[in-house]
């Protein structure tokens, strides 16, 4: 298996308007793949298509060789595609440990009757689950906050909990939607390290990020999209200097600006 995720010619429309347009992206296991582009370019829509929240109108999405196009989100998650959200979707009133436990949902083998009667199988399974949560809390340095409601945490900590929750499902593809948004410099550095170490577990990572320092530092490969279309792809240093990318980001108001951007 060469690719953990193959997005092939995918398009998505909203009431006739194109949101993503014929995108093709391939992610390898252990690779950190960046998706960048200006606001409203269609990045989050792409992620929603991959995770099943939207069904694309055209094209196919394959995960580990299996077609997952149009599958419901929980099925896709059960297969090992987990995500975080741009605007953090933690269960705010619930504790850190309980939040991380949510990620372990697909791994727990409990049946419906275990919610009524607790037998020895339940006890074993429950202990295993919480051990896994403990492991992740240690990994993310959250053990001291186990009982704290996530709504009371700082942004940076919340991002970590969200990532820990996704990791609890032992994903093979992790989708991070702006993981550094709202973080301060130190937190960003810490996060960068964590993402690196996750990718070393041979987990494919796909991320949207606006913090370009981080993107350029962290990712192995980047696709730049604008108006739902791919405008450039390549390794970070290539993309950073690609005039099409500069134009998309910084913009141009006149023809002579192009050489201006290239010139530096």
């Amino acid at each position, binding site marked *: 298996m060469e690719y953990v995720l193959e997005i092939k010619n995918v398009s998505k429309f909203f009431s006739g308007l194109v949101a993503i347009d014929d995108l093709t992206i391939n992610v390898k296991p252990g690779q950190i793949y960046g998706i960048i582009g200006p606001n409203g370019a269609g990045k989050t829509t792409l992620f929603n298509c991959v*995770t*099943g*929240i939207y069904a694309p109108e055209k094209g196919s999405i394959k995960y580990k060789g299996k077609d997952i196009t149009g599958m*419901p*989100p*929980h*099925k896709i*998650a*059960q297969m090992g595609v*987990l*995500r975080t*959200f741009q605007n953090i*979707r*933690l*269960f*705010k*009133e*619930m*504790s850190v*440990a*309980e939040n991380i*436990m*949510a*990620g372990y*949902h*697909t791994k*727990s083998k*409990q049946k*419906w009757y*275990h*919610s*009524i*009667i*607790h037998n020895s199988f*339940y006890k074993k*399974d*429950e*202990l295993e*689950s*919480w051990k896994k*949560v*403990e492991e992740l*809390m240690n990994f993310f340095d959250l*053990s*001291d*906050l*186990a*009982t704290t*409601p996530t709504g009371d945490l700082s942004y940076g900590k919340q991002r970590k909990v969200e990532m820990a*929750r*996704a990791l609890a*499902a032992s994903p093979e593809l992790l989708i991070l939607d702006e993981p550094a948004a709202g973080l301060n410099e130190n937190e960003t550095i810490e996060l960068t390290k964590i993402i690196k170490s996750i990718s070393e577990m041979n987990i494919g990572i796909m991320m949207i990020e606006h913090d370009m320092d981080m993107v350029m530092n962290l990712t192995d490969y980047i696709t730049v999209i604008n108006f739902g279309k791919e405008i450039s792809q390549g390794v970070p240093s290539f993309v950073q200097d690609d005039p099409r990318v500069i134009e998309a980001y910084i913009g141009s108001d006149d023809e002579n600006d192009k050489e201006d951007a290239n010139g530096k």
Partner: protein
Amino acid sequence: MNNKTTITIAFLAIMAFLPLLADSAWLSIGITFLVFAVVAFSQDIILGRAGVFNMGHAIFFGIGAYTTAILNVHFGLEIIYTIPFAIIFSAIIAVLLAGPIIHLKGDYFLVATIGFNIIFEQVLSNDIFGLTGGPNGIFGIDVIRIFGYELFSDTAIYYIAFGLLIITLFIIRNLDNSKYGRALYYINKDEIAAKSMGINVPYYKLFAFALGASIAGVAGSVFAIQYSAVSPESFNFMQSVMFFAIVLVGGSASLPGVIIGTFVMFVLPELFTEFKESRYLIFGAAMVLTMILRPNGVWPVTFGNIPKFLRPKKGAK
């Protein structure tokens, strides 16, 4: 022993000794309280835990009561054997009704369940298949017999209801500490995040319905036994509104909350019979006031239900 356990044990201890102190009038209030508390807890599984806006909970309570009444009166089945049917029918009806509408969003779901409740009332009042007895319902339900003993006295019924409450609390405790129970909370707090964690949202919502309905069904059976009669007005839409309000006024997914809610809605009116005329006015005002002062209920739920070994050591913050 944490706070919640202390409260639970204290509450159960008081309830266990009540029959020794109460006269018969109090005893029947006690039974009503226990039965309605069970129904409120079962509604709390659906509304408070899964967060599904169910405003037709009286249906399942009614299915249980009518199942017992019909099987006993029309088919001569012993009361004790009607209870499994009450559980199963309630659960099946719950899934059949909620299934097609489970994807509806909040208010729309609420309206649909109101609709079901009104259809249910009409089915009962129209004496469907000659089984439900029309507007007057079914009378003359037998007493419960276990091992040849007739359990007729109020005290016996009180302890049956009390037993049911204990079983309900036990199930809820087990539910809260299990994969299924947690999944319900996740769905309640953020459906999209829950989906993205691999939780099959409609499946778990229907599970909550089936579980809540079957508990309400048993409570219905006990209710039918207590009064030896069932009639449609006990399962009408207003009753569902009450169960809905109990959970939210008390505090959803909170044990003391639901107890407080049930007490305020069903026991206080019995205590202040002199306010009989104006009691619903006072309740209405109290509902409004509670929501304004405490939008999450009198005693909201607290989370952090995790094993001891994960709890941070004292001093660490």
